[in-house]
């Protein structure tokens, strides 16, 4: 194993980790706001990937240019999910947490079924994109360009999320999370804030989906694995912490790449799971968990 190869794998892992982190950020944002774990998160990623594929196929619009479009689509989807399903679960007094878990699980199964019905079970991929097939070389380290671009955009997403927390709206989010009954007294509409929170969370997954569609196959259950990694990232970083999601995503991406290189590609997730379990031994609420 040459040092260049190890470096290349490590950088690739970090770039992939940034993408994982964006998926996890959407999840942790929603959780931090209202204590709800979205088990349909993987299905939203899948939906975003199919949307990208469909738009690319019918209009030829390059995935990169679709970023705002698909993000907006997913934002709307997130708001709709909140309005139709989640707002109802918040009314429920008995077994509320249970209802949230299984409602979002049900939604996930429904969406995967819908994708199977509309697109079939065959794998799809976007072949003729602007970035597709190109590489970026630094000496002996060669990286696929779609992966590099996805890392850069992911970083931008995190910059935006960190900035968001300092805006007026970010403060309203924070206040709603702290005490939604008190903010109602000063005229903040809880449903509006929560709905927008779901919108932003889904939009983050939407962006990840577009980036991923550039270099990854698309199938009805493509989201399952990414969602699983996102749950691990959120639990590892601490539920509700955006910074935690970023750090955990990076740790996971790097661990996964190195496990695949050193142990075996088919066991690459074992490394992630072991690190996760080890961290939870010492920090049951993750690295940055407050709750």
């Amino acid at each position: 194993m040459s040092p260049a190869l190890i470096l290349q794998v490590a950088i690739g892992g970090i770039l992939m980790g940034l993408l994982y982190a964006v998926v996890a950020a959407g999840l942790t944002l929603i959780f931090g706001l209202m204590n709800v774990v979205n088990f349909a998160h993987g299905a939203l990623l899948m939906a975003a990937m199919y949307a990208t594929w469909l738009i690319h196929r019918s209009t030829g619009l390059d995935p990169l240019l679709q970023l705002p479009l698909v993000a907006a689509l997913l934002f709307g989807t997130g708001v709709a999910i909140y309005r139709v399903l989640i707002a109802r679960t918040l009314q429920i007094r008995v077994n509320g947490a249970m209802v949230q878990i299984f409602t979002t699980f049900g939604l996930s199964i429904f969406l995967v079924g819908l994708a199977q019905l509309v697109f079939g079970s065959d794998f799809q991929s976007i072949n003729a994109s602007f970035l597709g097939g190109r590489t970026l070389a630094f000496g002996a380290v060669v990286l696929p360009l779609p992966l590099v671009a996805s890392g850069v955009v992911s970083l931008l997403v995190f910059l935006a999320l960190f900035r968001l927390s300092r805006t007026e709206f970010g403060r309203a989010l924070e206040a709603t999370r702290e005490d939604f009954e008190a903010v109602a007294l000063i005229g903040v509409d809880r449903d509006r804030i929560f709905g927008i929170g779901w919108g932003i969370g889904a939009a983050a997954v939407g962006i990840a989906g577009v980036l991923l569609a550039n270099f990854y196959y698309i199938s009805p259950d493509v989201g399952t694995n990414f969602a699983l990694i996102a749950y691990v990232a959120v639990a590892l970083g601490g539920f509700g912490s955006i910074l935690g999601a970023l750090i955990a995503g990076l740790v996971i991406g790097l661990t996964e790449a190195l496990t695949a290189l050193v142990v075996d590609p088919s066991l690459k997730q074992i490394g992630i799971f072991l690190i996760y379990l080890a961290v939870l031994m010492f920090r049951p609420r993750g690295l940055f968990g407050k709750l």
Partner: protein
Amino acid sequence: MVERAGRALLSRRRRELLLGAVVLALLAALPLGVSGAYLRGLIVLALLYAGLSQAWNILGGYCGQISLGHALYFGIGAYTSALLFTRAGLSPFIGMFAGGLLSGLSAFLVGIPCFRLSGHYYAIATIVIGMMAALLASNWDFINAAQGITIPFHGEAWRNLQFRTAVLPFHYVMLVYAALMWLIAWVIEGSRWGFYWRAVKDDVTAARSLGVSIYPSKLAAAAISGAATGIGGALYAQYVGFIDPESAFDLSLSVLIALPAVVGGIGTLWGPLLGAAVLIPVQQLSVAWFGSAAGGIDLMVYGALIMVLALSRPEGLVSFFHGRARQEAVDHG
């Protein structure tokens, strides 16, 4: 006053037991009214999931620890029994005992780190451990990795728990399993442990201040629940004749094990049976009706049903009956 409350409780428990016996008799007679291998097979599966979900309910319902990794215990039970049967020729009745023991032990071991976690952290940890097991199982050549194990036919006999022709014997096997699980839950409801667990579920701090030792309580619930699930896994392997990591360890199985209890009424005696009676037929029939022609509709029906039931009946399907019972109590003064 206390005495009267105690007597009321006792008579309620006796009534439950009586109702249980009536339902058991009805279910035992059910094959008389249902002909056709397909429908009977459907009932066999529903009974199996009623039992599995009741096993889950011991930990998830009565003790309030929402495990989304019970496929692990199902898989360990199924694989242990199948391996002992195919490689050592041991009867599945020994196999299910060994499998139950192993899965109970694993549930105990999984509980040691996981019960330090709370709420969503616990649920996620169980998912991760379950998926880890699935991954290892599909890479472990000793157990045939992703290929799975086909259980050869060793001759129609109860000893082998194999029957060539009819589904009927399995109807009674699964019925006994579901009935035993129900009985365990009934015993737990009236036992000291049952009170401990409900106390742990309702209010950890209050339970602790009353002297309930939380951690050992949870471990005990996990071990019983895991062992009971493992036995169900062994029965499944023998009934279907084939297991692989996807059918025995997957997350979707963990969800399917938990769902009947959730839909029927979590932490209740009748919830798992009611939930399985609704969910399993809908799921299986939609696969049969839409499965091949228009793939995906079956999943949409299944997913929509879960959403509708969870949202419209948060207390589970049993609340239909409770509503009436309460009304009757009011009517009678």
